[in-house]
Structures are given as C-alpha cells and as structure tokens.
C-alpha cells in the first residue's frame, strides 16, 4: 500500500510538468501579453510617461524573451533577470492587473477557496449518500420521487439564480448574512473562535448553492448503482443466511455501490472550483474564481498560470485520495494491484 501511494506521488510529478507546459502555452496563445497590450494602449492615448515603467517591467519579468525561456524562468529552472526565482523557489510572480505579487493577490482567497470547496464536497457527500441510498431502497416510493424532484430542481435551476433566491429568503427568514465570507467586523482581525463562527455562518448558503447540482447528480448515480447491486445474487445469499435487513444493506450492497461514489472525488473538486466562479461573483465571495476570471481576461499570465496550476494540483490530490480510498475499500483493486507491481 505504501509503495502504491509513493508510486502515485511520483507519477504526479511528470503530470504536473506536462500540465504546467499546457497551461503556459494556452495562456500565451493569444497574441501579445499584458504589458505589450498596456504599452500599445499607453501609446494610443499618448501617455508616454508610463511607457518606461512598462518596458522596465517587461524586461524585469522576462516577457521579452522567447516563450520556452519564459516558461523555464516561470518554473524556476532557468535564471531570470534576477536569478532563479520561479514556482520552485516559491516565487509566484507578479500580478500586473492588481499591481502586487501573485502571492499577495491570491493569499487569503486561496484558503477560502479550499475551505469553501471542502465544505461543498462534504455537503455533497453528506446529503447525497443517505438520500441516494434511501431512494434506491425505497425505489418508486415517495422518498424516491422527492429525491428525484429535489435533484432535478438542483440540476435545472441556474446556480446564480438559486444563490439569489436563497440569499433573499435566507436573510428574510433565518437571518443569514448576505455576501462575503466573514462579517466585516472581523475583516482585518486575526483568526479567533468568533471569526471562525462567522465564517461558518457565511459558508452556509454558498455551500448549498455550489454543492446542490453535484448533490443531485450524485444522488442519481448512487441510486442507480445501489439498485443494481440490490438485485445481485450475493444479497440473496446474505438474506438466505438470515442477515437482518439493515446489516444486510450496509454490509454488502452499500459497500459495493460506494466505489463509483468514491472515484468521483477527483473530478468533483475542479468542477466546483470552476463552477463557483459565477456564484462567487454573485455572492461577492473572496474566492479564487473571480481573480482567475479577471486574470484570464487581462492576460495576467503569472496570476492565471498559478491559479490554474493550483486547480490542477487539487485534481491530482483528489484523484490520489479517491484511488487510495478505493484500494482500501475494494480488495479486488488492492490485491490485483499488488500482484502486478
């Protein structure tokens, strides 16, 4: 098992390298870059004063060099104008759009993003698991239909609309806060219990909104899986052994139906990060989403590049987690893997 994890970790390295190349190339596909655009704009409006600074930055961040060289400098395996300082050295680069280092732009929002998405994934699993299982066991009963109805509403309603509706009624009936991720009172204070409470309070609506469509899809999938498993002969065997109903369900088919459930973790994470952009804008959440949108529009390449790298890392970690869980859950995967390696 340990070897398996180690090997998977090693495989992640070349994957990340390839991903980083793709990201860098794609970002640089449109003609020009942030600074050359800015220079052109300054020229057009006759603001010669800024030109020198832009030119200086262009040289400073090696944007005047060939693409391959720029990439290597960005990664940190090639000396830039000020020596080795790329991602490997922990220098995330400069955000031209925001006029500060990328680390500063991203800083807190990165953690908010992780927290928010973690909460959303948790919500998805906590809600869809019992709902899906119940829908399968009581197939074609009112529970099943209710779960289906909730699911379809969740899938069919545009997220931002749902966000607005929930915001309005959440505020009106439950007094839930509107927008933001923390009460303005705690904005610049260090982390404390009260601040954490406020964050959790603010998380409720975004979590539901972001998680709902994923939940709906997951409920349907678990229901279908479990329904398949319930008809399998080994369930009949358990019944013939005299295993009581609840134990029969949890011990046998539910565990089997869990497999696709678990393997979805990897793909769930990125879809939530990218899916939550619009909601973050609507709910004015300080997540990474709006920053990514802005960076991509303005060709702010270091910012966009870093955010995309971060999301890719998230995917890979998600995949790793789901693979490890799968191996723990299913002896067929675990044991055939071992015999092959």
């Amino acid at each position, binding site marked *: 098992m340990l070897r398996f994890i180690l090997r998977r970790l090693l495989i992640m390295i070349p994957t990340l390298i390839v991903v980083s190349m793709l990201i860098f190339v794609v970002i640089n596909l449109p003609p020009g870059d942030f600074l050359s655009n800015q220079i052109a704009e300054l020229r057009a409006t006759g603001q010669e004063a800024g030109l020198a600074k832009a030119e200086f930055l262009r040289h400073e961040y090696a944007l005047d060099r060939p693409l391959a060289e720029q990439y290597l400098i960005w990664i940190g395996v090639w000396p830039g104008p000020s020596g080795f300082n790329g991602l490997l050295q922990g220098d995330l680069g400069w955000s031209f759009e925001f006029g500060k280092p990328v680390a500063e732009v991203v800083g807190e929002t990165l953690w908010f993003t992780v927290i928010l998405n973690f909460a959303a994934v948790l919500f998805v699993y906590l809600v869809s698991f019992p709902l899906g299982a119940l829908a399968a066991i009581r197939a074609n009963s009112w529970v099943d239909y209710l779960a289906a109805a909730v699911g379809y509403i969740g899938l069919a309603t545009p997220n931002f609309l749902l966000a607005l509706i929930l915001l309005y009624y959440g505020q009106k009936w439950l007094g839930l806060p509107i927008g933001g991720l923390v009460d303005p009172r705690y904005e610049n204070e260090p982390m404390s219990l009260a601040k954490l409470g406020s964050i959790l309070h603010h998380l409720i609506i975004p979590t539901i909104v972001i998680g709902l469509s994923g939940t709906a899809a997951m409920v349907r999938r678990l229901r279908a899986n479990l329904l398949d498993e319930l008809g399998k*002969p*080994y369930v009949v065997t358990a*019944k013939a052994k*005299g295993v009581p109903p609840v134990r029969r369900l949890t*011990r*046998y088919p539910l565990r*089997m139906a869990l497999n696709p459930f678990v393997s979805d973790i990897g793909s769930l994470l990125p879809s939530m990060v990218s899916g939550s952009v619009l909601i973050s804008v609507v709910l004015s959440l300080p997540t990474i989403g709006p920053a990514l949108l802005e960076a991509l529009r303005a060709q702010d390449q270091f910012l966009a590049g870093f955010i995309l790298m971060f999301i890719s890392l998230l995917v890979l970690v998600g995949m790793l987690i789901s693979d490890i869980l799968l191996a723990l*859950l299913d002896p067929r995967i675990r044991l055939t893997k071992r015999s*092959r390696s």
Partner: protein
Amino acid sequence: MLRVETLSIRFRRSASPRPAVSGVSFSVGAGQSVALVGESGSGKTLTCRSILGILPRGAEVCGGSVRFGCKKAGEVDLLTLSRSGLRAIRGSQISMIFQEPMSALSPLHTIGAQTAEVLRLHGNASRSQARAECLAMFERVGFPDPERAYRSYPFQLSGGLRQRAMIAMAMVGRPRLLIADEPTTALDVTLQAQVLALIKTLQAETGMAVLMVTHDLGVVANMADAVVVLRAGRVMESGACADVLGRPLHGYTRKLMAAAPMIPDYPEVAPEAAVSPTDAATATAPVDAILEFHGVAKTFERGASRVRALAGIDLRVRRGETLAIVGESGSGKTTLARLAMLADRPDPGARILFRPAAGAEAVDLSAQPPDALLDYRRRAQMVFQDPYASLSPRMTVGSIIGEPLTIHGVCDADERHRRVRALMARVGLDPAWATRYPHAFSGGQRQRIGIARALALDPMLLICDEPTSALDVSVQAQVLDLLESIKERLGLSLMFISHDLAVVARLADRVVVMRAGQVVEQAPPAVLFSAPVHPYTQALIAASPEPDVNRPIDIRKVALGAGAPDLWPAAFRPTPDGPPPLVEVAPGHFVRRAA
C-alpha cells in the same frame, strides 16, 4: 420435515394470468434427498426460493403452504411466519447453496468473514469460536489450507474451491435442510462429481435433508431418493428416484429421459475391430485434411506472467468429418478454436495448413498477412457458445444472417433477401420472422439464427464452440440434430468443441481429449468410450453422471484422473524433460504416455 402443499407463485406484473408455479406439492423427510427437476422456466428455482422467502422482486406466493418442522417451535408455516422468525430459521435450520458461487459470494469480504457471519448471527458463538468452527468446516469440505482460505477473497479462489466455500457457508450452521439450487451446473464434470460426493458425505454425517434443484437427470440419479418433475410450474410426475427414472410414466419425463445426453454403451470391442476399414485405409494413405495443425502453441502474456494455453498441438481435421475437441475449462479448447479461425495468431514456429479442396495445394494460414485471410474466412465459419450474447440486439434477424453476404459483397440486396429466407428455412425458422429482433426468440431459436449466419457464405468448415451448453437438454438435442443434418447435406467438415462427453459421443467421428493445453488422448468415440486408456479420459467418462440409479459415479476414478498428474500411473506422468509423447496404441488411437 418439510411439506410443500399446493404452492402457487405468480409474477405481479406478468401479462399472463397463469401463475409461474401452480399447485406444487411435495415433501422432504428428515435425512432424505429430494430433487426438483425441470428445464428453464419450469418454476423449480422459484419453488425452492419461496421456502426461504427469498423470491425475486415482483414474484409473490399466491396460495398454498410450506410447513417446516422447526426444532424449537414445532411445525410452522414458513409463508406466514414473521420476518424475524424466518430470519432465525434462515442459515441455521435451512440453508442454501447457489448456482454461481462467484456472484453469490460478496466480492468485498473474505470467505472466512462471510462464513463466520452465519455463526455469529445464529449460534451466539464468540468470534474465536466461530473462527475455529469455520476452519474445521473448511477442512471438512476439502480446502487444502483452511487458514489461507479463511483470509481469501472469492476472486482469489478457483471455481471449485468457491463452490466448496459456498457449501461450507451453508453447512457451518448445521442446518436440518439444505437447499441446493443447481449447485454444480457452473462446474466442470470432474469437479461436479467431487462436489456431489462431498454433499452426499456431509449429508450422511449430519443426517440433514437435501432439496436439490437441477436440470440434469444424471445428477438426480446420483443424488436423490425421490424426484419431482416440474414443467411450466406444475408437477408432472413424482415418486421414488428409481421408479421415476427407471419406469417414467409421464410423457414429459420420458421426453426428458430421451433427450438427456448419454454416453452410449459401446460393446467392449477390441481396439483393432473398432477401427473401420476406411479408417485403416486412411491411416496408411495420405489423409485429405481440410485443416492441419502442426506444432501449434499459444502463450498469453498477462503482465509479467506468461500463460501457456496450448503446447505442441498436432491435429488434422479430415474433410467431411466431425472432429470433437473435449476438455474442461482451462484446457485450451477455446484457444484452439480461436486459432483455427485465425482470430488469434499462434506462437511463432507453428503451421496451420488449410487445403481448399482434396489434393489442392495447402496454404499455411499462420504465415499469411491478415488481408490474405479473407478467402479463408469465407470458407470457415464459427458458431458461438452463447446465443444470447453473440447476436446484436439492435439488428433484425434478417440483417444478422445476411451480414456476411454484405461484408463479402457476395450478391445484391434482392439476392441477399432470397438467400436469407432460404437459410432460415434450412435451419428450421419461419422466413417470415426475418424482420424480428433476437429478443423475440428462445435460446434454441437463437442458436439456429447463429447457425444460419455461419452458413450464409457456404463455408466448408464449421467451428462450433460449445454451441449447446447454454441450452436446455431437449433444445440441445434439436440443435445437435440440426447440425448433424446440415453437415450431411452440405458435406461440411466440423470442428466441435465441447466439455460434454455425452454430446460429443453422439456427434463425433473422432474425439480429441485435451487437458492443460495438451492432447492427452485421441480416438474414434467407440474406442474412446469403451476402452479409454489415459487416466484423465477415464476420469472424465466416470464423472459424467448418468440418469440411471444403478450406475453411480465412481468417485475414486474421478479423483484419481482429474487430480494432479502425480497421482497418475507412472507411464502417464510428465517427466522432467516434459510430457510423454503421443503414442499410437492402436490404429487411430493415440494416448499421451511413455512408449
């Protein structure tokens, strides 16, 4: 102990008002063995499932009673018993063995955990007690290493061991009644013989009653004291086993008996006399073989490990003959069929020669580039094992049968329609059905469709890979008849692959017995079945159950021949340099043994 009275079961949403099981009555006494016999759809499985209250979804009991003499509570009606009452009986007093051990065992739990669960649920046994009892039971059912079996998952065991695990699981609660639903149908004959013997000895030791569900009259004859013959949910005939099988009164029972494939009684002939003059002539004269295998081997690479599926096969399929290849699972017979179709390529060094006409130049197929094989593919066709999986559900029967004609561009559409109709008529299907889809046909009819498709291109050679093993016995007989008559009429050569000696006995001109990728014996059926020489062939023949109570399976012979080669007499054992050679012990009779 168990009395089933006028039991009726129906499907809730079924279109026909007729119940699937109606008015079935029988009883099982303590220590007795009763067999429910019938073909698929006869309601035998539904009947035995209703006893434990594990009917499939949609099926419900609509009449009758199932009385069971309970140990504590006296006689109870299992159909009206409370759920918890029924649960207490399941697994402890009545337990069940299922047909497919692979799917009937949970893939996620060890054999030990699944078996111990029975004791933990019913016996109030402690964890260590349960474990000890399980280990004892594993040893009893013949696991070579009970400790290891306890830790194994089902997918790590062979088919035979899995069924042993299933039996251990059913037996560990010391039930008073064991229900066995086709317990050996998924197993090879030699394993079947051993598993049946095991159930019998366990029954003798514990005195439990056995209710066995099977389609195989041979199994019945070996196992049962009494028989209940079912057809379409009704009892046709019931009574003591010797009476029903010895003097069947009902027409259906007679029909079943007649259709049951049996190895015919060949008089003990001297090997020389069994070889007909023509055989003797062809033995010396150059043989006109349509297909020849020379030194054919096939190795599959599975990751780092290499599996030798076939080794050193030399065979000839003579023009116009039926060559039967017999072997159990893993013997390499299907690999051989795929090589004969050139669906796979043999290992380098092998030659597969095809002679289109008598005296014509032989073509080495294995050396041909893929596109040069087109001509051969027209002349050699295959009939597949599973008529359910081998026909596309999205194509009409007419287009399935006509597809080879389209692919090879043989004729225009009108001519194709005409030919499809003719083919359908030839295999006994109504040509008007050409526009229907496969799901509208029964298993036997589907296999006829498969045969018609194989005949579409006027082949010279037909390769049949277990064409009847998915069919009921009475249907099997019809399909075999069809194959035989087609072969006669069209002058085809047949390569017939089967695990079933009885099927082979009626069809083959020559029989080849394979084991572990090698030919162990080869002879005309009259010789092979009357005077088998190789211990493995002897075991195969001994293991075939016959529907005659006076001729039980000789389990010692089976265990000897089907076991490891070390158990065989010295002459047959492989030497350090490899297996012994194939020796001609009599004209046309080859055996793998030391000369």
